[in-house]
């Protein structure tokens, strides 16, 4: 059993990473990664929704009939998103204003629904909770990585405004790596999002190849 949990954690964080391997949840992965801070915040919000909805679906899985499971899953996710939306508006208002539209859009992010269908609908509550949590954390890592690369090249900073969004304790994270006028604006704009994501998928393949693992060529190719 302990081995199982280890696999769940490893799958979520690296092997089956939601963004870089399965290519799910691409919309926030590109729209909300103009800086590492935004990517981190968006990732944590998604992780919270995924952990909670995976747990709920796993608890009620024997009561949800096969025919209506997709609408039920979507409603559970939507309810969790509403909770996160209200909580962030109350306690992290600055971050809420930055993420804006993309908090409600977690509902139609394909990653939570894919994990509910593939994992939580068939497994007990505790592994499902872990799967949701670590898939979400893997998503957070991916978003922070994309955000960091775009922010460093685009504006020369790293985790700028972290203290404004998460509280004064995060002041130490704010770095300036390049002089102000060195930024390449293109990286902050939409084309940079596509470019960095594409290149980071290649980086993950290189690391996997070096570790002697088979590289995943296709991705999940979900059309959701």
């Amino acid at each position, binding site marked *: 059993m302990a081995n199982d949990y280890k696999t769940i954690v490893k799958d979520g964080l690296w092997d089956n990473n939601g963004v870089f391997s399965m*290519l799910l949840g691409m*919309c926030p992965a590109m729209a909300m990664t103009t800086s590492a801070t935004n990517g981190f915040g968006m990732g944590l919000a998604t992780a919270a929704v995924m952990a909670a909805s995976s747990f709920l679906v796993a608890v009620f899985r024997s009561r949800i009939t096969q025919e209506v499971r*997709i609408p039920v899953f979507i*409603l559970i996710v*939507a309810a969790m998103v509403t909770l996160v939306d209200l909580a962030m508006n109350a306690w992290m208002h600055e971050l809420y204003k930055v993420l804006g*539209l993309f908090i*409600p859009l977690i509902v139609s992010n394909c990653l939570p629904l894919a994990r509910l269908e593939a994992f939580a609908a068939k497994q007990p509550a505790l592994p499902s909770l872990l799967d949701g949590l670590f898939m979400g954390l893997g998503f957070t890592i991916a978003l922070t990585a994309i955000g960091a690369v775009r922010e460093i090249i685009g504006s020369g900073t790293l985790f700028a405004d972290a203290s404004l969004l998460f509280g004064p304790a995060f002041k130490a994270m704010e770095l300036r790596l390049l002089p102000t006028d060195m930024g390449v604006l*293109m990286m902050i704009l939409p*084309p940079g999002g596509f470019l960095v994501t594409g290149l980071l998928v290649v980086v993950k393949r290189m690391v996997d190849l070096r570790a002697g693992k088979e590289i995943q060529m296709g991705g999940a190719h979900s*059309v959701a």
Partner: protein
Amino acid sequence: MKDFALMMIGAALVNNVILARFLGLCSFMGVTTRIDTAAGMGLATTFVITVSSMADWAVQHYLLDAYGLGFLRTVTFILVIASAVQFTEMTIKKVSPSLFQMLGIYLPLITTNCAVLGVALLLVEGRMSFIGATLFAFASSLGYSLVMIIFAGLRERLALAQVPRLFAGPPIGFIVASLLAMAFMGFSGISTG
């Protein structure tokens, strides 16, 4: 009239749903391997976005705003969208069975296309009139279809190209999409003129 025309061009080209707003990327990477499926998907999504945006507008104004239920917006909108998708599926099946055959599996999946929910949320937050909202939704989805078809065309060519092994599949797709997004940034000059 001029305002509406400008807004429609803005929604379709300048603030393109896929390339500027990053909505609907799953279908953008998933079903653009052939031009005809991309066009079918574009058509069905256009219909769903327009119908569900009209319904969402009505729900927001006559139900949520009227009774102060704004916090239920996400839940109600996703339900409206799921019903609109179901309605579209039934209509297409009745009116044109051949089109229904062609779209097949892609129809029910439109529910989780974030472009549908995204456009509905955008027009509610933009405080548009009913006609404005309908035109905005229609123009946005036309922009979506246009980019889907262009990208499918590019990928059909890409399938024949020699791509380094590490870049094969999605990564080269992202890089091509990045170039396409750069090309679409050229449209941003229109809105000021």
